[in-house]
């Protein structure tokens, strides 16, 4: 029983990073109708920023979190302005191609500057035990931190004027434009928030693994699958889907086969979509 | 006159809201039937139920005595009912004539092997399609636009094209959802004439319309809906004088 519980906690921790990245993706998709496949590479840039700020700059971890969020959201706005805005009104698949181009550019650039994988120290390098679960404090930070930022995002969306404007736009883009919401400003804001969330995920996860140019490519694939399973544009769906995939993976490793864990996890997702063709929480076509 | 379409106790609920509530009516062949009612009365939902894009919770739809309840849209179309949509739906980036070719697809049977080998059937059907397209272009007065992408046509021509696409499949019944919506007053007459012509060619018409004056002159039979319930039906004069209709329309009908 303790083993099962342990595996569930690991699944939730895996899921936490998926949720943070998937939330950004689903916001961008819901509001701008863009398949921002380069989102994982923004996450990667976030991890490098953390390295620069914290390891090279000697800044405190929590302050570094804020700096990375701010810096990466600016990067997100630049990407939106330079790559995606010229594509507005084009077929959906075109933004996907642009995103692949962006992935190639970012990954090659980073590897060209720093070919070796880097390490970021943990802010609290300790372990803790609870109910027979033994794990690093950093993992607790990931789990709790993800929940905090999910709540912050919900508060922002539901309680602030900008947030409600974003929500209105994700539900009805043309209607939002009609009632005088500035579409350009909203897309920039959306990208800023989404990439800030990616920065959060990167800052939380970086101390647990390596900072490397390809760290975002597998993550974004999973995040995208999550967004689709939950229903494109649905934040509820992204949260549920993220934790679901994390737990599925952890359980597949424990009880089925670690080599075929992706086969199992992705197979379940195909079945879910065959039953709910527009994701668990509806979403749009 | 024989009954073409019969709707019995048709009901559809969305959550707590009953969009269409136990509606009964019949459409006789060769007639023009109008469905009227204020916004949100359930008119378009009724069309969607008949057309098969949503499934009814209760009730029955029969076409010439055949039960077509819950059929998929394409089966309903092949069964003999085609429709237009409230927000004009067209194959926008395709030329007008291709729109019509697609509309005629359900009358042709060429498949993969006909396409690959260009069989006699493919040849025959291509010829037949061309002939039909020319005829419908003429019938609806769209010949001058034949090569233009449908989305670039003027609003009124788009409405006529939508009707043409529905007609070319040779339906028994066409459902027209606000065929004159968003069209200027002078151009409305052109569409009324077209609807008359359609009836004259032997196709039964059922139309959702807001412009009461137009309906009074055009329709043989009117069904009035409000809050998903049929509040009145009959010939134009009697429906117009029905107190519940007057109440629903705040007297607008008198005009």
């Amino acid at each position, binding site marked *: 029983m303790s083993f099962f519980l342990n595996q569930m906690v690991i699944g939730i921790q895996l899921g936490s990073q998926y949720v943070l990245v998937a939330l950004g993706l689903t916001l961008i998709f819901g509001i701008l109708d863009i398949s921002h496949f380069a989102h994982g590479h923004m996450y990667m840039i976030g991890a490098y920023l953390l390295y620069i700020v914290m390891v090279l700059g000697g800044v405190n971890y929590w302050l570094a979190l804020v700096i990375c969020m701010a810096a990466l959201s600016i990067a997100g706005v630049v990407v939106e302005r330079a790559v995606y805005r010229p594509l507005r009104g084009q077929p959906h698949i075109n933004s996907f*191609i642009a995103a692949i181009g962006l992935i190639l550019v970012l990954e090659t650039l980073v590897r060209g500057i720093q070919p070796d994988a880097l390490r970021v120290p943990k802010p609290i390098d300790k372990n803790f035990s609870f109910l027979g679960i033994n794990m690093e404090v950093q993992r607790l930070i990931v789990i709790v931190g993800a929940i905090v930022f999910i709540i912050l995002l919900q508060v922002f969306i539901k309680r602030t004027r900008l947030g409600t404007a974003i929500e209105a736009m994700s539900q009805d883009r043309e209607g939002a434009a009609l009632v005088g919401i500035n579409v350009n400003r909203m897309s920039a804001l959306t990208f800023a928030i989404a990439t800030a969330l990616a920065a959060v995920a990167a800052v939380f996860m970086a101390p647990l693994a390596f900072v490397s140019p390809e760290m975002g490519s597998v993550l974004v694939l999973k995040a995208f699958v999550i967004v689709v399973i939950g229903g494109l544009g649905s934040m509820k769906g992204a949260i549920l889907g993220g934790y679901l995939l994390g737990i599925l993976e952890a359980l597949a490793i424990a009880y089925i086969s670690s080599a075929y864990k992706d086969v199992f996890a992705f197979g379940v997702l195909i079945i879910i979509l065959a039953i709910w063709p527009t994701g668990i929480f509806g979403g749009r076509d | 006159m024989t009954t073409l379409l019969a709707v019995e106790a048709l009901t559809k609920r969305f959550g707590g809201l009953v969009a269409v509530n136990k509606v009964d009516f019949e459409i006789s062949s060769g007639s023009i039937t109008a469905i009227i009612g204020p916004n949100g009365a359930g008119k378009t939902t009724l069309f969607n139920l008949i057309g098969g894009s949503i499934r009814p919770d209760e009730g029955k739809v029969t076409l010439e005595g055949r039960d077509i309840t819950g059929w998929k849209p394409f089966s309903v179309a092949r069964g003999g009912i085609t429709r237009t949509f409230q927000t004009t739906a067209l194959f926008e980036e395709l030329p007008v004539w291709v729109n019509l070719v697609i509309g005629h697809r359900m009358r042709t049977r060429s498949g993969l092997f006909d396409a690959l080998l260009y069989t006699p059937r493919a040849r025959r059907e291509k010829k037949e399609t061309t002939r039909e397209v020319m005829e419908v272009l003429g019938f609806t007065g769209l010949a001058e636009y034949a090569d233009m992408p449908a989305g670039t046509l003027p609003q009124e021509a788009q409405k006529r094209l939508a009707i043409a696409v529905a007609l070319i499949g040779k339906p028994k019944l066409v459902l027209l959802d606000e065929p004159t919506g968003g069209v200027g007053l002078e151009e409305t007459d052109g569409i009324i004439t077209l609807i008359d012509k359609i009836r004259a060619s032997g196709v039964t018409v059922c139309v959702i319309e807001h412009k009461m004056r137009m309906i009074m002159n055009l329709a043989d039979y009117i069904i009035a809906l409000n809050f998903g319930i049929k509040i009145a039906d009959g010939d134009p004069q009697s429906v117009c004088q029905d107190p519940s209709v007057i109440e629903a329309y705040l007297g607008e009908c008198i005009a």
Partner: protein
Amino acid sequence: MKKYGKWAFYLLLIVIVALIPLYLNRSKSGKYTIQVLTMAMIWAIATLSLNLILGYTGQASLAHGAFLGIGAYAFGIFVERVGINIWPALILASLITAFLGMLVGLPSLRTKGPYFAIVTLCFNVIVFKVFENWTWLSGGLRGQKVTMPSYLEARWARYYVVLGFLILAILIERQIVKSLLGSSFIAIRSNENLSEAVGINSFRTKLLSFTVSCFMVGLAGGLFAMEKGSLDYTITNYMYSFYLLIYLLIGGAATLAGPVVGTVGLYFLLDKIKGIGEWRYFIFGLILIVVIIYFPRGIVGGAKQFWEWAKKKYYRTGEVLE
């Protein structure tokens, strides 16, 4: 008259392409170019297959990398382990791919748009993982060897085989998209709900398009195995699905020339800039972004638009002159 001119142009084009190996085969480096062209044409067949389902039917399949691999392995296994002659093996491999495509299409084509793209991508990941881990199937480290008969030993011989299949693939696609069936495909791409309302069974039509598309990509896979002489699990990588998508959209979706131009052009470019190492991906990425922003309908689509624009301009000045 105009019609004959067009056919004459195509004929001339085929003759030129058919003559290329005669010139190239004289030197060793020319032989390498023949090989690059052959590979480019194989990829072009795969891109054409994607064009049918994505360009004409509007369903973005991201599983074509998997189907390419399945076709290639089916061919390899038939030839090497079962011992069938290569030509029936090629047809069988394509049929098997088409059949699997149909099985995959049954659940996945119930979804639309991005949902379909992700379902097919999931399928591709699954196939990739299975081939990676199931070494009996994939042949493990050494991969699956595919022995070719001696008459296909020379590079130019394979060039002509592949060229023949490429022309066949273009013809097949042309026949389909110009037919009444093709109009059903295009209708679904344009407006699926309206297609249903005018009596087109969109699910069956999409399934047919997907199956035919898988047949073609299976064929490309078989030719791939024939050209390479060996296979390994990386051929099922979903990166290839992305590459096909790039070739198609940069070349121009929903045109017949676009997939060929895009694939041959980009494949050649990537081969030529191999010497600059990793930075080639940087350049490639930049090209993708710039082309997709300035030529949203791809190279061929853009050229067509330019042609229309120039024609209009010419006629207008013509009118003024009169």
